[in-house]
């Protein structure tokens, strides 16, 4: 209360105690922060595992040869899903045929020919932007260009072309990435032997980059195989016979699943979950096989 004593000079004694308490606090905060961020990652992983678990648990029992290979019966409430499997395979194959060559070409251009400048910058911006365009907008584009203007109708062809546009950024990206990973020495050795740039690219760089390109493309294609919105506007029908030509409507797994899950008269849950299992299983199997093949090829190549 009375006049305060002259302020005590900061004694050396309390400092270590304060410091140790600060260290303790920092360590405690660190432990809490690690727990919280770790919990967030754990939550994400748990959600993914739960998704896999539910689909396998509810879908796997309904898988039988008959389910996979027969036609739907009685308004989809019985029978199999063969036409939907076939339709999705055909759509994906068509997508690969259209998007593969052009996407790989564009990737080669960016990796080997493009000089840094405004044009290249614009191309890169466009690719990044294409990857973010909503799939339903691709559907509208496909509907107006392929279905209406080019008069392909609601068809396998229109759907494949639409999905090809959607998949292009993935294929371009993985091609460029794979080309950049091929060491420069290989190119220089080839050029030094008198090969032209094109020959070098085709005979030396492309084979070395192929595993990465194929794997990246398969991942992109498997994503396209699971898309529903674009093919809804361009390719699929609720029920269609097996397609005879590229101008026919098709059935497809994702759309089949959507219809069965939302229509008023629902088929047996076994059929719905079985379809989901086939779709997720197919997409996953393609991805895993592609990744395994890539790592085998990579271990063969050594540089």
């Amino acid at each position, binding site marked *: 209360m009375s006049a305060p004593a002259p302020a005590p000079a900061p004694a050396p004694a309390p400092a270590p105690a304060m410091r140790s308490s600060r260290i303790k606090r920092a360590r405690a905060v660190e432990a809490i922060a690690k727990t919280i961020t770790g919990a967030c990652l754990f939550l994400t992983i748990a959600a993914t595992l739960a998704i896999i678990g539910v689909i396998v648990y509810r879908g796997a029992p309904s898988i039988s040869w008959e389910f996979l290979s027969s036609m739907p019966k009685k308004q989809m409430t019985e029978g199999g899903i063969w036409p939907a499997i076939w339709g999705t395979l055909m759509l994906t194959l068509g997508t690969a045929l259209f998007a593969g060559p052009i996407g790989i070409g564009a990737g080669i251009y960016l990796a080997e020919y493009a000089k840094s400048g405004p044009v290249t910058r614009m191309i890169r911006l466009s690719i990044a*932007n294409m990857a973010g365009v909503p799939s339903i907008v691709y559907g509208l584009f496909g509907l107006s260009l392929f279905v209406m203007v080019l008069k392909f109708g609601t068809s396998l062809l229109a759907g494949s072309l639409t999905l090809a546009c959607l998949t292009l950024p993935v294929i371009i990206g993985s091609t460029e990435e794979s080309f950049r990973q091929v060491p420069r020495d290989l190119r220089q050795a080839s050029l030094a032997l008198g090969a032209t740039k094109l020959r070098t690219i085709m005979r030396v760089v492309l084979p070395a980059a192929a595993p990465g390109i194929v794997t990246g493309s398969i991942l992109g294609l498997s994503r396209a195989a699971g898309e529903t919105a674009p093919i809804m506007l361009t390719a699929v029908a609720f029920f269609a016979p097996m397609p005879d030509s590229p101008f026919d409507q098709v059935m497809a797994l994702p759309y089949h699943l959507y219809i069965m899950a939302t229509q008023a008269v629902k088929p047996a849950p076994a059929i719905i979950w079985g379809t989901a299992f086939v779709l997720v299983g197919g997409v996953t199997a393609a991805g895993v096989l592609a990744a395994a093949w890539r790592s085998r090829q990579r271990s063969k190549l050594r540089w």
Partner: protein
Amino acid sequence: MTQPSDKTARKGRLGFSRAADAVVRRVIAACGLIAVVVLAAIFGFLLVNAIKAIREVGLGTMMAGTDWYPTTEPPVFGFLPSEVGSLWVTGVALLLAVPIGIAAAVFLSEFAKGRFKEIAKSVVEFMAAVPSVVLGLLGLAYIAPLISKTFNVDSGLTALTAGLVVGVMSLPTIISIAEDALFSVPKELRQGALALGNTDWQTTYKVVVPAASSGIFAAAMLGLGRAIGETMVVLMLAGNSGLIPTSPLQAARTMTGTIAQEMGEVVRGGTHYSVLFAMGLVLFAITFVINLAADVVLERQRKKWRR
């Protein structure tokens, strides 16, 4: 005798190979432009098909119109119910996905080690590969009943339900891009901070996260883009009401869902058809701006750490 012919043959081969080189180079350069062409074509075709609606109804009237009665006579085309629905769904999705995604990315990049890190990364990658229609099915089977029970609402098909599932969908995008951004922060910065006596966490939030902030921001933006553009989940889970939702516990419709649901039933070439294209154009414009912003930010970050 043989020498001259040999020489011409070699010259011919060289000439041919040069010509082939030139041709193929042009073809490849043309492929390079495909992305620009497709993007421009998307915009062009949306615009051409939307012109009828813009002329007859007016872009302002559509975008600010509060009622959506496309099949009455005369029809009323107001986008607000869809726009507000998209806002609710996206808002819920981002509230869930941005904090969790960034936190998970921080743990993955800064604290996780070795085999666990690799496995966790592949799990996240797998999550991105699950088709959205399958997530919609899971939402119908599990999340919608849960929402209906928890909040005591009649139908579990609400903006909240769709938002939660869309949030799960955009998690992998946010995690992988944010993780990339954190990973690209130079090691020296971390070592410097640790050498000054900071803990791992102090290093992370004082040095690494600020250094990667633009990339993390871009991750959130791209997550936003995915959430706005998601179609099947909202079509299956949001309830598709035509009214403007005032809370996330009401049924809602989104722009993507409206297009997907009604495009199948419209007269091709009619006003309703054109109006749906106009809605697609608005959607395209929104995502275009978001993606462009994210890309510009990412590019700046890339330049910053390029050595």
